[in-house]
């Protein structure tokens, strides 16, 4: 019976309803929403609670358990540095330092200008080409810190391309 924030809620409801799987759960619904709008806004927690007949707090409990869910809109670009064992041994540390420096971050998170969302990844599945980074879901293998720095500068130079 809501009058507020209709369009966002509508999008969320659609995401929940359009899941094609035998068992729809809190988790699957959260995933569907994140796939559809890129993050889990407050309204998503509420709508999942309604659809699953759970309380908002239990839904949030689930959502906050998984680092993969984000509660704020993602940046325009995504950057991930693989931090898996192979990449780690092959020198991901230097790459990571460079990337953090370029982005002006100290840890996972979004750059203040909202341009880039940066995260670690535990294995990007391309160990043979480590160290690996992913930029806007495109993999770059055997990267050195210099290459990483070039890639990031390119990103900055043409914002909002994605």
């Amino acid at each position, binding site marked *: 019976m809501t009058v507020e924030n209709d369009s966002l809620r509508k999008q969320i409801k659609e995401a929940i309803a359009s899941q094609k799987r035998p068992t729809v759960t809190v988790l699957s619904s959260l995933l569907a929403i994140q796939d559809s709008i890129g993050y889990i806004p407050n309204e998503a927690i509420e*709508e999942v609670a309604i659809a699953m007949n759970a309380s908002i*707090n239990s839904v*949030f409990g689930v959502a906050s358990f998984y680092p993969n869910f984000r*509660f704020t809109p993602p940046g325009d670009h995504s950057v991930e540095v693989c931090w898996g064992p192979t990449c780690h041994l092959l020198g991901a540390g230097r790459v990571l330092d460079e990337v953090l420096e370029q982005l002006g971050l100290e840890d996972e998170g979004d750059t203040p200008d909202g341009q880039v969302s940066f995260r670690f990844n535990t294995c990007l599945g391309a160990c043979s080409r480590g160290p690996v980074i992913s930029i806007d879901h495109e993999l770059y293998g055997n990267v050195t810190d210099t290459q990483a720095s070039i890639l990031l500068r390119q990103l900055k130079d043409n914002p909002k391309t994605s």
Partner: protein
Amino acid sequence: MADKINLTIDGVEVQADPGSVIIQAAMDNDLYIPYLCYYPGMKPYGACRMCVVKAEAPTPDGSYRPLPGSPASCTTPISEGMRVETNTDELVSLRKGILDLLISEHPHGCLNCHRIDLCGPTDVCLRHVTVNDRCVTCPKNERCELKDTVRYMEMELTTPLTYNNRHLPLEVKDPYWDMDMNLCIVCARCVRACDEVRGDSAITLKDRSGRSIIGTSQGTSLLESGCEFCGACIDVCPTGALVERDYKWDKAEKKVTSTCPHCPVGCQLSLDVSKRNKIIRAIPERTAEANRGMACYKGKFGLDFVNSRKKIDKPMIRNNGVLEETTWPTALDFISEKLLNYRNGEFALIGSPRGTNEDHYVGQKFGRDVMHSANVDISSNTHPEITKPLGDMTGRRTSTSRIWQLLDTDCVLVVSSNITESQNVVSVPIKQAAANGTKIIVVDQRETELTRYADIWLRPKVDSEIDLIGGFMRTIIDESLEDNEACQSCGEFTEFRNSLWDYDLTDIEATTGVPQDEIRNAARMFANAENASTIYGLETISPQIREHCAKAIVNLALMTGNIDNGPSGIYPMFKGANEQGARDLGACSEYLPNYVATGESAVGMTNLIESLNSGKIKAIEIVGDSPTFDEDQVGDFYKAFKQSELVIAHDNFESALTEIADVVLPSSTFAEKTGTYTNLEGRVHCVNPSIGPSSEADEEWRIFSQIAQRMGASGFEYRNSSDVFVEIQEKVSSYTNLDLDKVKKNGQIMRKENQDFQFAVVTRAEVSGDTTNSEYPIIFAPGRVLQQPDRDAGIDTSSDKNTITRTEIVEINASDASEHGIAEGDNIKLEGQGFSMNGIAHVNGIHKGMAASTSLFGSLVEDLANSGDNDPVLKSDSLRLRKVRIEKI
């Protein structure tokens, strides 16, 4: 109960209930195994590992098979012949290790200090531990289970003083409830209490691993997270992480168990009393059968009124228009002399629903025997129709089953009764049952918390409930769903059945506005349930038709065999804490003690105003306790009181009543009384003086006795309340089985009177209440729920108190909307007598002539917490229907 299981714990042979876990078996036998996350009555969780034991179970060949590793005793079920060791060196060192890890995230300056038993908050710390890291400055100090466990384990002083400080901000902006997550040991007791026991899930475990902590969705306020402010989480928290805000730092000097004065559940509360003689905390008793460790916002956070310094502490007599303090003898002499003039039926005595049985009994005896007046009642008896038909038709004067039997019913029908607020603890077993598949049917115009649990929520037109219930019964007969044996065993079945032919479903669909199919479905759901219980409060139903409606409800229960059949029962829901006792003991206008009908037209709450106005009543003595008249009518009552020649008021506080009174007597609050209350199940509980007499205030039974004696009456020579109780037992047959020692322990249920059941024919009334009112043509049904996830709550968190800021949505009917030029989303205003609200119009399928709006329970709690009233709970707004007019703004 199945046979007990034998096992040995540390060489002691014990017996325990089958299905218990080891730790519970130990507890039941007064043996202690350290634990932190377990809590009796909640499902084992196995999080803290403090309760590890060694256990072995016998095998068929006579040898013993050890259970692998060191199992947690809170998750390991007992078995016959099991041998358990709880204190081996290995276990002790395991536990110490665990505890070491636990307190590595908990401020523990004092926990591993040799002065742990010596220091108080004002001592200078010898270890230079900062204030925040010391137990002695924690609100839970000496009530903390973590500290007790650390002590028991005799931790060495080798743990370093530094710990991982979480640096989390305190959450102190919500009403009543303070949260310091730096003290949390993440045992999840609170989350489980809120979820498993209360069914609310208003708090959750968020994040994971090292960062896992308690909170709400996105850190929102409890005002919108679905919290009912029952305090269950606080009650189970072993540390200072969750505490009651009021008197947070105060220590209990003594503990007194007494009965909550706010509703007829009669929760047993263990009251902490400080050395300043204040009730500083209420902790519901886990072993009490009425509430099983539960309470609600009123019992948990609404008792502070007894501590008020504004209580009246001396009798007062009005002299030249001004109340002047006087002494008891003078006041009593004055009253007894005056009252001599009114012993001819011109006197009325109105007691308080908070009076004890002793007060009620002596009061009515005084009114009837000394004042020769049948005009005796209590102020909450404004709906006598709720209980009367049940008594007439079944002989039962209380609920026919017990509160916690609702756990075992398969279907619960709730008619016009907002129990989550008015008799909260009754809803706890209902919500638990609903989680286990019990079907819930709610009939109400208002959206209440239980409608959120309802499988079927029927929202009939105002005052069409008789037809609706008739429609249920007609369906049941049509489809032969009745319990034939039960029907035949009740009187007047044939007449009753024949009367149902009038209830034509097509017709009923029109009068109730509820589609036939929904009526049939609900009827089937109720009738097909193995056990079905009915709860009714008739809160939205007009006085003229309440009695018929109650009859119809009882008929429905009778025809489906749902009275006295296993757990199923029928529960009339009145509001006064000891209204039950008042009726049992004849302190009401309908009955003498023992439910002997008065036989004369006595004046009671329902006709008091007209009797005062007509001059039939000239003197009135009223135990105000800040009166709880039907809210709409308070003003009318005061106006009428002014007609009276003599008004004697007993009250706790100065009020609109004492302003009118000629004599004011200071009345004791429940915290100063000694006596008994009878709850809605007929369970008699003790009211014990927790703060004791703190002023000259006195108990009603003693006041009435003294007046009676001064007026020359005999039979009032009671030395104490037990004397009165003895006399009650002589005079009231259903109380004869009571044993005061049992009553004192945990309450005892009074005897049931058995009588043959009778149907009552209810003809279809041509009732529309008095719904047509040209000035206020719309009936407004206010609702209230804990949570509305489909709406943005709108919480202002910027000031030091969280507040709800949203604008309410008002449901209105399309034709009413167009009549008033209102479109979806328009701002509108509702106005009634002494009422107005603004909202946003939402045009939907609600009945023509009706409007409704659902607010958050958080708003009510906010109001209570900020209220300047002496006794806010008494004045808290019940959800009554109102006549309003609507306009666009």
